[in-house]
């Protein structure tokens, strides 16, 4: 019925990475080749890989010591009556008996928990923002099955009220925004810090790799089949995929040769730039796929063209092929229990996450939903309990990996966030109780050491431009 929630037919993803990207303006190395040939720009330097650079900067924080808390470090460790110290935006240490440096804020967290901030690898906030009106519906460029040329960041509306809810209710500090799943190649993803800014660039996670959102299954074949276009079947999906990869391989060869050897500059193709980035390992494939058999086909296709699927998203049947995923070093990003809402979700079970964990595959929770992102900790609690009922024992602390370190790894940012390891970004949540209990909420959330949500201080709760002056004013009234 129309009262139903928001999960839309949108979700798809793809994320890639751009490391320290060179820009075209850089000094180009001169090669020794003599002839009239143009000089070779050098590999990866033929064009800018970072034309919309991050302008995010950490907000000021104060050195903070949270004491007497239960700590999940995000890597599987648990400390009882422990402390967490962070300063200058970075984690300094966790353990027992830490002492506060002079001038530090000390918070007694007796009865409370501290964890790394939650990372959602699959969100459409900003691209499908609230309010969900057509004018703001910017998540699916559903005009062609291959739109590797579009970048989700160019649709992100930084005033989406959903960012603030994800922070305050969900403890989400980092999220990947993906294009939707209407297309086989949906476009580039972007990784954001969950900090409001006036521009998308102001939210962009510095140096995070890009992703490429791909989709298999029902959505592309339905969207284009209903228009009398290819693909109208699953075999059509794979045919268009392979043809596109073949073209990308050719594009890559031309550009690699030019960048290495100089000569005539090949013509640019914005879509092929992204696919070349995948083939060179710079951009990560985030692949919407529900069915086990289709995931197996996609992994073979990836081998055929020499790329890797970083993660299958939704992956409701991943539990059937945990061994295959493990062999291919491909992750599954899943819901706890969504099932039955379409044919390809008919076999969804609540034990998916736990069964994959048991199989030794890389697995994590994801939301794909503006409401679900506010309760990812609860989703993990459900998945954990379902697993335990099936005899799969995973500790609470180990399960927190599904919320932080596993998605950080799949996004290629685990050297900077995703756990409370000293030196990492101080993306930290203080929960008012056990975060795997339904009765618990974030009490404070820090991003890069800056306190950006405090349940006890109405001034530390963001209200987006859209909600300012509206009734409720961002659910703070």
């Amino acid at each position, binding site marked *: *019925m129309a009262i139903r929630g928001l999960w839309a037919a949108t979700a798809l993803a793809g994320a890639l990475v751009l490391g320290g990207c060179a820009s075209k303006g850089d000094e180009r190395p001169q090669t020794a080749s003599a002839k009239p040939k143009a000089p070779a720009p050098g590999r990866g330097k033929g064009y800018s890989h970072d034309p919309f650079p991050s302008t995010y900067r950490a907000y000021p924080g104060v050195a903070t010591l949270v004491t007497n808390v239960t700590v999940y470090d995000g890597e599987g460790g648990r400390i009882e009556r422990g402390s967490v110290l962070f300063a200058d935006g970075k984690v300094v240490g966790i353990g027992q008996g830490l002492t506060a440096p002079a001038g530090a804020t000390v918070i007694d967290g007796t009865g409370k928990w501290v964890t790394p901030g939650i990372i959602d690898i699959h969100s459409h906030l900003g691209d499908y923002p609230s309010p*969900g009106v057509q004018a703001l519906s910017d998540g699916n460029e559903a005009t062609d099955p291959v739109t590797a040329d579009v970048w989700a960041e160019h649709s992100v509306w930084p005033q989406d009220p959903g960012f603030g809810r994800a922070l305050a209710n969900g403890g989400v500090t980092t999220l990947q925004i993906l294009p939707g799943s209407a297309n086989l190649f949906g476009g580039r993803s972007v990784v954001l810090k969950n900090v409001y800014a006036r521009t998308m660039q102001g939210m962009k996670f510095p140096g995070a790799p890009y992703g490429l959102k791909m989709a298999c299954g029902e959505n592309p074949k339905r969207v284009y089949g209903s228009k009398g276009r290819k693909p109208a079947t699953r075999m059509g999906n794979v045919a268009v995929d392979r043809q596109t990869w073949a073209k990308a391989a050719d594009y890559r060869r031309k550009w690699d040769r030019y960048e290495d050897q100089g000569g005539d500059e090949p013509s640019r193709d914005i879509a092929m730039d992204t696919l070349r980035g995948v083939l060179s390992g710079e951009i990560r494939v985030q692949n919407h796929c529900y069915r086990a058999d289709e995931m197996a086909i996609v992994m073979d296709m990836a081998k055929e063209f020499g790329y890797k699927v970083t993660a299958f998203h939704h992956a409701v049947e991943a539990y059937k092929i945990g061994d295959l995923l493990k062999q291919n070093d491909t992750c599954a990003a899943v819901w706890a229990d969504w*099932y*039955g809402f379409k044919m390809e979700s008919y076999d969804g079970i609540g034990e998916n996450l736990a069964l994959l964990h048991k199989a030794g595959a890389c697995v994590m929770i994801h939301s794909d939903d503006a*409401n679900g992102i506010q309760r990812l900790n609860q989703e993990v609690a459900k998945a954990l309990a379902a697993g335990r009922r099936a005899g799969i024992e995973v500790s609470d602390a180990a399960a927190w990996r599904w919320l932080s370190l596993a998605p950080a790894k799949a996004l290629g940012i685990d050297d900077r966030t995703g756990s409370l390891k000293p030196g990492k970004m101080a993306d930290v949540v203080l929960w008012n109780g056990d975060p795997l209990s339904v009765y618990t*909420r974030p009490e404070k959330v820090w991003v890069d050491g800056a306190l950006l949500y405090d349940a006890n201080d109405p001034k530390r709760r963001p209200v987006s431009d859209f*909600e300012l002056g509206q009734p409720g004013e961002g659910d703070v009234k």
Partner: protein
Amino acid sequence: MKALLLLAAAFVAAPVAAQTIAITGGTVAIGDGSAPIPGGTVVIRDGRIVAVGRSVAVPAGAQTVDATGKWVTPGIVAGIGSLGLVDAGGVGESNDGSARTSPFNAALDVSTALNPNGVLIGNERAGGVTRAIVTSDASTSIFGGQGAIIDLGADPDPVTKPRAFQYVELGESGADHAGGSRPAAYAMLFDAFAQAADYRRNPAAFDGRGRDALLKRADAEALLPVLDGRMPLVVHVERASDIRQVLTLPRRYPSLKLVLAGAGEGWMVAQEIAAARVPVMASAIADLPASFEQLAATESNVGRMTRAGITVGVLFDGSGGEHGLTQFAGNLVAIGKVPGATGLDWGQALATITSKPAQVMGLDAEIGSLRPGRRADVVVWSGDPLELSSAAEAVWIDGRSQPMNSRQRRLRDRYLTPGETALPKAYSR
């Protein structure tokens, strides 16, 4: 009185289990808003609750169920949705939840489509859902049709009360279905009621058969019990101003028995809803300005409306199956601990998914709680039923013990052992 008699008639067909069962030792939550009772006993006889409490004697000859260390509650009453009408939402062939090209609207009677053998029914039953409020979605008109109250029992008759309410859209969706504006939705509503009155005065003279008739005979006929107040009119609106507008309808149609569904901005007009004695089915978790009619959505909505004296049941608006209502109710407790927000205490929270929805639909004398006389829809849980780690372990509907297996459980069991074994997975069952 007439309404009561009809109600009674509707229940006659329900199956009865001639058996006495005593569930002992558990933490018993009656579901009426009261606090849980440690070490309580629930006695079921002939399909009804006959006694509940701490010092209840186990009748001689009763089958006893030891629930020590467990929790015992009424079954969840889920709604408003399409349970029983749909195999997989996105599979149009399997979906009786809407009728996009039908010439009929208010006449659509979902009780003709219910399939108690559906996979979703089996899964949700094993998850502790025992009754559901189901309706078809409005699509070609503001009217969705006649909804039903069903049970999820593993038996051939899922209907608790057919034609239990009429469903109508009067907010943004209603505007859309009526041709593009709220005034168009109200014009459609007023015209439909006027035509229904015409039909009542002189059925033979009523047009309503032509291709261009704005209201078909069957639709007009279906609206008569609504005008008479014998059938509640469930109105989906979200915006405060829309709620106010709906609350004026009884001035024009004095017998109308209103129920609000959605009411995302209900907290802003809570005093008016309470004064009108209109019950509400609302979301526990919708806190985003998901549309221009929900700008003031907040997780405090249910708490604030309840505090104002409104009868509020919680809608299922999630995606993991209706058993997730326990999680929604738990969140109503959680939000109460956040400064500035309003939640519910535990007993009230459980009531929003058991007795309150029953009360909203006028069926709380029959279902939704463990108070004596109610149908014995009982669930034994592994722990606190609102907590994420808990699961239903035993379910009775009308006093009958229900199977706890389900297709999803079978899939789990098949894949507990990874990889192929001596034979393909297809042989493992």
